[in-house]
């Protein structure tokens, strides 16, 4: 990801929005200004590093509701909240719901830029994970159903002859399947295979439980 990052600034207060926009541009970021949450949600997601600066108190959809919407639509953009009221309950809720940070207005440049950098770093690393996961999942998809069964049982620590017994074939067949699996999944050893499987499961779980 060598594209330059873009910051989405969402705030219904025009002077504040334009001031932040100026500051961020002069600090080297690309900025897109939105006057409401609806406007943000209309924007298509890009694949460049980005983060969202979100005002908590806006007419219509407020910041927390936007956060909910974004997570429903599986957005990966980290969210930094900006609030005129340093309300503890709201900030806790926002952070629990996965916000990157919760800042109070007026916000100093140093604080803002540090938060943005952290958000972008998180974005990059989670993008990396996501891409690995995708690659892995696409490779797993190339396994035949039989190979898939073998794979599942192998990563669970079953011996070849146990697998053979369970699936009702000979050990030799199992060995052949296993070979194929290792090849297709590009795994160097059983340990590698297992760790990748674990990784995939760990990464896959949040997706499954997302609501």
């Amino acid at each position, binding site marked *: 990801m060598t594209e330059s990052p873009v910051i989405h600034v969402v705030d219904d207060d025009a*002077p504040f929005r334009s*001031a932040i926009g100026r500051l961020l541009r*002069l600090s080297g970021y690309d900025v897109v200004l939105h006057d409401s949450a609806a406007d943000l949600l209309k924007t298509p997601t890009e694949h460049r590093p980005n983060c969202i600066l979100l005002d908590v*108190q806006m007419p219509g959809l407020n910041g927390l509701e936007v956060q909910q919407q974004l997570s429903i639509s599986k957005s990966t953009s980290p969210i930094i909240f900006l609030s*005129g009221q340093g309300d503890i309950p709201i900030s806790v809720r926002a952070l629990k719901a996965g916000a990157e940070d919760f800042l109070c207005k007026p*916000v100093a440049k140093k604080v803002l830029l540090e938060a943005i950098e952290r958000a972008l770093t998180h974005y990059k690393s989670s993008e990396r994970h996501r891409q690995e996961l995708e690659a892995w999942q696409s490779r797993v998809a190339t396994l035949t159903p039989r190979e898939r069964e073998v794979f599942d049982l192998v990563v669970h620590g079953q011996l070849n002859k146990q697998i053979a017994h369970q699936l009702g074939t000979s050990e030799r067949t199992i060995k052949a399947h296993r070979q194929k699996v290792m090849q297709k999944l590009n795994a160097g050893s059983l340990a590698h295979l297992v760790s990748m499987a674990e990784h995939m499961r760990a990464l896959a779980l949040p997706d499954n439980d997302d609501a």
Partner: protein
Amino acid sequence: MSVCTRIFLCLTMCVGAPIATYAQRLPGSALILETDTVDRPWFSALPSSFRAVAEVANRQIAVNVRIPTGESASGIPARTESLSKPIFDGRELQQWKVSENRLPPNNEVRVQEHALWEEHPALMITILFVLLAQAAVIAAFAFEHRRRRLAEKQAQRSMSELANIDTSIATNSISASIAHELNQPLGAILSNVEAAEALIQTQNPDMNLLKEILVDIHEADQRAGEIIKRLRGLLRQGDLNATIADLDEAIRDVMHILEADAARRHIVLQFERECSKLMVCANTVQIRQILINLLFNAMEAIDAASNARASSTAARVVGIAIRVPSRSIAEILVSDTGSGIPDDKLDVIFKSFFTTKPQGTGLGLSIVRSIVESLHGAIWAENRTTGGAVFHFTLPLAQSSNVI
């Protein structure tokens, strides 16, 4: 009786007693004497000493009369009254201001006009004591009564003072508003300043951009000043002496005061009215006081209800409506979408110190009721069929002819 006899009697009286005594010792001798001398009118003209002697002689003579009639002399008790006993008239003593202890011993003072209190000292003292006790009790009651009246007046004054200065809800709400609203222009100013700092460090700073930044800073500053002015205006007590106020304006003021609080709680404040200007017989400050309390309670009720319920999709609306049920009364309704009030508590919520909140003072609704009643209005609460409670209060309209 002849004059001679009289003279003789007088002389006899002067030396009567010794003679009488002497006569007593001479049994058989008879002395016929008058015994009713004391009753004669000329008797009281005699000086008292003579009178005393006459009395003694009289008694002696009376005794001696009995002897010849047959009584034995020894059977008759002898009264030895010495004539040498000095006898005085009390009135003379008083007139000449001679005190009794200057009199010779063994004296007798007759016709002493004693003062009542001298004669019955114990009784007099008791009566005096009783009167004093009565006076003390009456004084105590009067004092007690006065103190009670003063205390009642003081309590009434305190209540109305409390109603006037109990602006804590408004103040808190306005403080939150000020904080929130001011942070916007302050944030804009800070970010603009930092942007300008970054700008002038570049090679060829864009002067137009710099000018824009400065203009924006200026505007933000002015906005901040206006926010403070507007919100302080809401906090000001206003003219406490005015007796007529615009109900519509008062309601909108209160909604403004509470709007930041409502926004924070995600509660919508809805105001419906039939006409735009309605003058009532009340002071703006009083109407605001009533409404702030009722609206704040409504918002708290909604929050409490949604904390109890799990779902967050229920409506969170506080409604304010004005009705004009008759030509002389305006009725204001404040409704909420909370969980309502238990039917048996619809009355008791207005009592002092009744509260369901752990931190509540319980004074809000009782203050509101005392304000409403002092304005000759009425206040009551009921539950809505659609859920939640609604508080009604009435105020007299200013154009009505029956101003109480």
